[in-house]
């Protein structure tokens, strides 16, 4: 008796839903900011993965070899670069604070609106993100070269 009820009740609900259809919004529309969010999330994922790489290199004891130690330094630089990029992109979103004038000419300047001095300096500094990613790739190159010598 109980078993019959257990099967009959869900079957009745399913039948009701199938026999009474309504209009559905099947495809979700995406606005412009989603691209920036995805990019930011990708930076964070990249940052997290570099952290995981450093943990894995240390946990497996590979950093005892100089080649892998350089790879670890490279990963650390890329973490710093990701932080810089995330901050830079975040500050880019505050259009009222920073205005780029004459962007298409060599005399282009950044004008600062209501932002504080420290925030201005931080924004300006984040634009020099190559100071982190270039050392990162150079360390990776040095690491690979040492690994090639070891093998």
């Amino acid at each position, binding site marked *: 008796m109980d078993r019959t009820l257990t099967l009959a009740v869900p079957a009745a609900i399913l039948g009701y839903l199938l026999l009474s259809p309504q209009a559905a919004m099947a495809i979700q529309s995406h606005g412009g900011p989603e691209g920036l969010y995805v990019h930011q999330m990708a930076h964070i994922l990249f940052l997290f*993965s570099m952290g995981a790489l450093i943990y894995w290199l240390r946990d497996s004891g590979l950093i005892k070899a100089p080649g892998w130690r350089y790879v670890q330094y490279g990963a650390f630089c890329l973490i710093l670069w990701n932080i810089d990029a995330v901050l830079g992109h975040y500050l880019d979103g505050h259009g009222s604070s920073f205005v780029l004038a004459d962007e298409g000419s060599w005399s282009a300047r950044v004008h600062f609106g209501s932002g504080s001095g420290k925030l201005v300096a931080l924004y300006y500094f984040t634009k020099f993100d190559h100071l982190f990613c*270039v050392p990162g790739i150079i360390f990776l190159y040095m690491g690979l070269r040492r690994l090639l010598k070891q*093998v």
Partner: protein
Amino acid sequence: MSLPVYPIWICDLVGSALMILFSFLCVRLAGKLRDRDRTNVVWLYLLAVCYMLAAFAISRSVDHIIKRILLVFHYDSLWVLVRPFSGAFNTLTFVFVASVTLFFGRVWKVYQQILEDKLAIQTAHEQLLFMNHNLEDLVEERTRELALSERKYRRIFEVSRDMIAVVQDDGTLLTLNPSGMEMVGLCGGDMSSGSRLLQDYFETVGDWSSLQRTLQGQGYVVDTEVSMKRADNTLFSGLISGSVEDRSRGNGEIYHFLVKDISYRKAMEQQILQADKLASVGQLAAGIAHEINNPLGIILGYTQLLIRSENENSQNFEDLRIIEKHTRSCKTIVENLLSFSRRAQTKKAACRINDVIEEVLSVVRHQFQLEKIVIIEEFDPRIPAMAIDEAKMKQVFMNLIMNARQAMKSGTVRIETRYEETGRKAIVRVIDEGMGIEARHMTRIFDPFFTTKPTGEGTGLGLSVSYGIVKDHGGELLVESEVGKGSIFTIILPVLQTVNQTAEPGAGKRSQSGH
């Protein structure tokens, strides 16, 4: 407030160019690493990361370099068209590098496991190949080692002076080494003819049962003394150690025994005990004799004085003669005790022992002939003159020869002398075919006043006096006897040719040997 943008542009242009340059250099190096070992998952990972970083560098260059160019040359609309693709591609490269990296930790562990398994398989494979190629040599070498080992242990088994026996739990002898066979009086053929039981060579079956119980209980026995018997029923003392071979087997156990014949050691211990006992008795006897000797001398002196003053036919005269006779008997006994305890005076002079024995025999020969006892003499003429107290040694030989005569009704008494040049010893053996001495009496025959003869036939001082005299000469008096077959008395004397002096009482050479 405003800041110039050109430092950022310069940094971007130079940085982007460096990024492209080093990312491609990284791809080249990672490619070389991959080429070294194409199955190495680590190199594959690095190559994939480098490819993505190169793609990332290119996308950044689009973002930073082309952007500047397009904007400088006023192609703003074109940049608006390119920008989303550049940004999206840039994002994809991050995600790819991050995904590969995040999964790589797990892939690395699996790869390590694969490497371990590969190594194990490779090692096993190499071992199999090696065995396949060298099986014949390996078997030959192993056979040689086994043969060598077998020979080594076989030799231990065969040359051991102790019995080594392998026995089933019911006592059936499976293997017995040559010493074991000799110990129990078997010859080689005896072992192959029918099964034999170890317990058959135990004097009492109870000893075997006790051993069996101990073996079953604790798995071994150590230095257990048992009385064993040979095939001809003669007894010997054995010291047994044994263990169970493999207790896990269900169908019967195998015992390994090591049996040491300790008869000689036990005999030596017995002799030491005997010598200690006789030394103690000798001290006691000497003390008593010394105290009695003087009063006896006084009694004898006064008795002789009284005899002189009495009429020969009177009753007093007869009584005094009886007193004198018994006093003299007492003095003889006391003198014998002093001889036994080696306190009597010894007068050593150079003489030939063969002559001394001959003189004794000349006295007794007639009596022996009457009793149809044959005397056989085997004298070694090489025995040189020795420093001995002739009178006392005559007493010793007389005691031994008369004992031999009394032990048998008829038969042969053999008297042998032998000279051992190496040890400079003269050995005299008196061998009779008499009734022999029972084992229980063997430890007491040298005790003063011990005799098995009927009352009145002996004082029990003969052997003890002889023992004392021989000891006083630095020698040994030994006895071997078997009931019903006869006895052998052996005198071993050191040959001292240069001594020709009168020894002081008790100054004779004392033997430190265990007799």
